C-alpha cells in the first residue's frame, strides 16, 4: 500500500514533507497540489483538480511497487488565495507552481500540470525510473 498523507497550506506542507523525507528516505515521494476543498461539498473549487484526484488515486493503487511510494496531497488554499500572483506556492523556490493541479515527483524535474494529471498514462510515467 502507498503511504498517503494530506495537508492544507504551505507551512503544513513543508513540515509534512520534511517528516516524510526523514522517515521514508530513498522512497519516491509524489506530491499533488490541488485547490482546497469546500468543507461542505468536499469538492475543490478547481474543476481540473476534481477530475485529477480520483485518477491519481487510482494510479497510486496500481503502482508497480507501492511500498516504495509515498503520496502527499496538499490543498493550496481558496481560489482567491491561489489566484494571487504572490501566492507562496507560486513564488517559493521549492514549489514554483504555475497551475493547480500539479503533481510532482519530488526532487526531480518530473511534474504534470492541469489536465495532464487527468491522464493515467501520464501519471504512470512518474513510476518509471
Amino acid at each position, binding site marked *: 500500500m502507498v503511504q498517503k498523507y494530506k495537508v492544507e497550506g504551505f507551512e503544513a506542507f513543508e513540515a509534512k514533507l520534511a517528516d516524510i523525507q526523514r522517515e521514508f528516505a530513498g522512497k519516491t515521494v509524489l506530491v499533488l497540489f490541488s485547490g482546497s476543498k469546500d468543507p461542505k461539498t468536499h469538492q475543490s473549487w478547481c474543476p481540473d483538480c476534481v477530475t485529477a484526484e480520483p485518477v491519481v488515486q487510482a494510479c497510486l493503487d496500481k503502482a508497480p511497487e507501492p511500498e516504495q511510494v509515498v503520496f502527499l496531497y496538499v490543498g493550496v488554499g481558496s481560489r482567491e488565495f491561489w489566484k494571487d500572483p504572490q501566492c507562496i506556492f507560486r513564488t517559493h523556490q521549492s514549489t514554483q507552481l504555475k497551475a493547480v493541479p500539479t503533481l510532482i515527483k519530488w526532487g526531480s*524535474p518530473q511534474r504534470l500540470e492541469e489536465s495532464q494529471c487527468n491522464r493515467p498514462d*501520464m501519471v504512470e510515467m512518474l513510476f518509471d525510473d
Partner: protein
Amino acid sequence: MNRREPLFKQLAGPAEQGTCHLPPLIQDIIILVIIISICVQTLPLLVLAIFNPGSAQDLDGSSSSSSSLKRNQVAPSEAMAPVEGTGVKAKVEGLIKGHTVMVFSKTTCPFCDQIKDLFKQREIQAEYLELDTLGQEGTDIQEALLEISGQKTVPNVFINGKHFGGCSDALSADSSGQLKGRIRAGFHDYQFDTIVIGGGSGGLVASKECSRLGQKVAVFDFVQPTPLGSTWGLGGTCVNVGCIPKKLMHQAALLGGNVQDAQMFGWSLSGDSKPSLDWPKMVEAIQSHIGSLNWGYKVALRDKKVKYLNEYARFVDAHTIKGVNKKGKETEYTAQNFVLAMGGRPKYPDIPGAKELGITSDDLFSLPYNPGKTLCVGASYISLECAGFLKGAGLDTTVMVRSILLRGFDQQMANKIGDYMEEEGVNFIRECVPYKMERVEEGQPGKIKVYAKYNDGTEFTDVFNTVLFAIGRDPCTSGLGLEEVGVKLAKNGKIIHDEAERTSVSNIYAIGDVLQDKAELTPLAIKQGMLLARRITLGDKLLTHYENIPTTVFTPLEYGCVGLSEEDAEAKYGRDDIEVFHKNFWPLEWTLAKRSEAACYLKLVCRPSEDMKVVGFHYLGPNAGEITQGYAGMMVMGAKKADFDRMVGIHPTNAEWFISMDITKSSGVSPTAAGC
C-alpha cells in the same frame, strides 16, 4: 474513440446538425437506388468473406501473423459463387478488409450524411453499406459490428481494415489533419505504420508529426554509455551533450567576462574582485535544466500518442527490428516504414590511453569535477567552443591542431577566431598530433601525460588534468544491421540517400546527422524530420532546402554565417565574379570595457554578374547567433547588396554595420571603421 451516437429516426435529426432533409418521395427513390446498388455490391463481398472464413485479424493493429491479405475488391465475375456457411461476422470482416474506407451507415441518420459530405468534400473514396435497407440482416450486422469494434452505432467507419470510429471521430481527425494520413498509411499487418530509430532532434519531430497526421508510431531511443560511463536521457545529442549545455557553458563564460567589464562601467565588486566559477554548481544547474527537458519530451511523446521505447534497435529484416532494453530483454517490432535518426558520437584517436584517459563532449557537460588544465585535441567547432568556455571559466586551456582551424568554414574568419582566442590566452599547438597518453596521477581530475609529434617530427610532451577529444564524429550506423537489409552506406558510414531522404531501401528513410554530405545541425534535422513526416504520411512533395542554412560558432568571439565562404564562392564563380565588402567594427559595449578594437569583423561576399547578389554573409562579433538568424531571412529571399543598403539601421547596434558597407577587398582600402 468509440463514442456512441444516437440513432436518429428519419427526419428526426435536428436541423442544426447541418444535414439536409429531402422530401419523403425523393428519399424513397434514393433509398431504392441505394438498395439496388448494395445488392449488386454485397454479393462480391460475400464471396470475399468465404475466401477468408472467420479471418481473425487483430483489429487494433497489434501483431498478427496472418499474412498479406489481398485488399482489392473482388471482381464482379466471382460474385456468382453460392453464399453458404458464412456468418454475418465473416461477411462484415470481409467488407472491412475489402475497402480502404468502409462505412456502415443508415440512410436515415444525419451523422451518416455528415460523414458522406465530409468524405465527398475531401475526395475520399469510401464504400457505404446502408444497414437500414437490409432488414434483419442489417440488425445482425450491427450486432457483429459491436462485437468487432465495440461500437454499435452508425456511422461506423473502418480505415485500412482497422476500426476508426464514428462521425465525431472522423470530423475531429479531419480537423486535426489525421484523416488523410490514416487513409494513406495503407493496409498492412505491421504493428506500426512508422518506427523512428533515434529520439534526438530529428527523430522526435518526425515521430510526433507522423503521429499527429494519423499514423501509429514508435520511437526508439537508447544511449550507449561513454567509455567513462556517462549517459543521459531522452532528446538526443543537442539537448544532452550538444547545443544546449554548450551554449549554457558559453554563457557562463561570457558572464565571467561581463562581470569584469562591469567594473569599467562603475560597478564595484565586494571582496575579491576577480570572479571565480564554481564548476560543480554550474554543471548541476545545467543538468537540472536538461532533466526537465528530458521529462518534457517524454510527456510530449505520450501526449502525441507516440510509443517511446528505451531500447537499442537492430534490424532483423526490412520490416522488423529487435529492441534490446537496459536489462538485455529482447522484443521484436514490425513497421511499414522506418526513419533512421541515430545521430553520431565523438571519435577517439587510435592511440594508447585515448579511451581510458580521454574524455569527449559526451562527458564534459556532466563532468562533476572541475577539469583543470585541459588539452582540447582537434580544430573542429566543438573543440574551439569547448576551449573557449573552458578558458572563460578560468582554466589553463590548450588546443592541439593537426592542420587548419574549422575546416569547411571561411578560413579568413576561422583564423580571426583563432587569433582572438590566442589573445584571450588560449594556447595553440599547431600542426601537431598526439600519439600516446599515460596516467601520471589518479584523481578528479588526475594528471595525464600527453606525447605528441609536430609535423616536422619534433616531439611535444606536457601534463594535463583533462584531455578532451573533438576530432570529429562518427555516424551511429554500424552494428544495427543496416547493410544486411540493403541500406547503402558511404565509406565514412553515413547514409546514402536521395533528395527526398530515401535510402536505398524503399521503406527506410533517414534524417539528421546520419545523412551523407549534409550539415550536422539541429534545426536542419528538425526541418528534415518535419518535411519527411509529411511526405510519408500525406504524400506531400515539399523537399528540404539545403541552401542558405545559417549557423553560428559559439567561440568567445562568436561567428555567424549564411551561404558560401569566400573560398567556396571563388571556386564556384571564379575570382572575377565575386566582390567582397568588409568592415572592422568596435562594438559600443566594448569601448568602455577597453576590449580589442580590431577583433570584430564582417563581410558580404557578392556576385557582380547577378547584380551583386549576396552569396555569403559573415559576422564575427557579439550575439552572432541572433544577428545571423535575422539576416538569414534576407539571404533566403535572394537579397542583393542594394537591398542591404536600402535598410535603415537600428542604432546603436552591431547588426547595423551591414548597411552601406562601401569598402571592397579588391580596393585594398583598410576595412577599419571610421566611427559613428
